[in-house]
């Protein structure tokens, strides 16, 4: 294992293969998403990739109306907002992601604590500007 891996580029390559991958320290067992090459708990540099279940819980969210350039190009704007959120995976780590399966026009119906699961684009569907998407599968 090259000590120079566990980069964002490798993480994205996993996602493109429909794998949500974290890095686990082989010395102390800590699990990292975003993946990282150096363990911040024990300072060992001995990681392995590990696939996550993709199941988790919505910890926080927002409905974005004033959107950045990349999302503007993807067709979102003030009247077509999207939802971003923090998702705590069942394996422990929390990650930022685009959230679907909710009604962005009725934010009061979106619940912190909802169960979510990772979704990947089907077939040769364009993944769009957000490489990581979770869908709300049930309310808390």
């Amino acid at each position: 294992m090259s000590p120079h891996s566990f980069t964002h580029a490798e993480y994205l390559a996993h996602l493109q293969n429909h794998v949500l991958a974290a890095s686990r320290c082989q010395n102390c067992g800590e699990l990292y998403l975003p993946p990282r090459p150096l363990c911040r708990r024990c300072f060992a540099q001995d990681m392995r990739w590990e696939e996550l279940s993709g199941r988790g819980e919505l910890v926080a969210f927002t409905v974005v109306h004033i959107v950045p350039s990349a999302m503007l190009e993807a067709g979102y704007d003030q009247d077509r907002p999207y939802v971003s959120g923090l998702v705590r995976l069942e394996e422990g780590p929390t990650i930022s992601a685009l959230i679907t399966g909710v009604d962005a026009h009725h934010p009061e119906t979106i619940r912190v604590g909802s169960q979510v699961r990772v979704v990947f684009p089907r077939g040769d569907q364009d993944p769009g500007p957000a490489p990581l998407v979770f869908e709300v599968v049930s309310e808390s």
Partner: protein
Amino acid sequence: MTERKLGRGVAIVGAGMSRFGTFPGRASRDLFVEAFQAMRESVDKGLDPRDIQIMYLGNYSSDLFEGQGHTAPLMADWVGLTPVPALRVEDACASGGVALRQGILAVASGLYDIVLVGGVEKMSDLPTERVTDTLATAGDVLYEIPAGFTFPGFYAAMATAYMDRYGATPESLMAVGRKNHENGALNPKAQFSLTIADIMAKKIAGAEKRGRPVPTWRDEMEFLHDHQANPIISWPLRLFDCSPITDGAAAVLLVAADLARQFTDAPIHIIGSGQASDVALHDRPDPTVIRAAERASHQAYEMAGIKPTDVKLAEVHDCFTIAEILASEDLGFFERGQGYIAAEEGLTRRNGPRPINTSGGLKAKGHPVGASGVAQAVEIWHQLRGEAGARQVSGTPDLALSHNVGGTGQTCVVHIYERR
């Protein structure tokens, strides 16, 4: 570990800021000259600028806002300080406060006695979506921004978690914005020297003048609930929950405490300083706590030998209304989950028991990112010297705190100031 004392005492003997606002055709250097001159005029016994020995500049991203790097020696030249060392300090929105802290360390090191700390940002040349992009670079551009997060979006997510946990509502947030506009209305250098009611009146007058349908808001709360007047930026944050896009600069003059009386009979001593860092927002165990603020304030309190209850006046980093509520808890002013109640009850108003953001805060005064941390010290300079004019807190407080946050809280820097 026990926090240490500085090797040498440090005092502020001059402080000033430019007008905050949007100023087409004026570059960073022009704003900085204005702040420098205001600082210079504030030095009671006069300042020969040639006595300044080093300059620290807080600036977030002149690179992206103006396409200008290497800003520090340029600003130093424009105020005539060349050839003194000039360096830029960057920690996103905390750049100004972190520059102040480095100025303090420079005096404490024994190498410098007279230090200029400036802050500047020229934000209004870019279109809004590129300002949005630029502010978002304070997050992790590999793992956070591709999730669609904007800068308001991060704080909006903290707000949904906080509201879920403690029962706060969008109306709790509005209380912060109303209060800060009340204060800003009394600050002639603020971007919005206007209460919400003043803004409503202006819009009504404008509609009448142009023969448009005249809005009929009953009160400020109805105005703040109007989707047209106060659109959602990133739910639950609306326009009046967000600090504006601002051009501005600020400057303070630091000297070794034993030299302070050469410049003024009313120096303001910096008796506490703390700074801490944190991981990306998603990586924290609780999105309703800015741990870097807890830690930085703990350091500052310990260095100053005071408790949160001793603080008479605070300028806190209200980049968004929720941020002020979290700050009031992180700093130990209120218990967890009580900050929003305190805001609703008016405890943090100018004449309340715990005045916060008498300047108008980032919300009403404006938020030229790299200047904000320095401008907080400018407000405290005025208040502790009893020179804050119409917004002066009664009784002339003797102990104040500033709290400046970078990004979503990956940086926080806290200072404590005393009039002796």
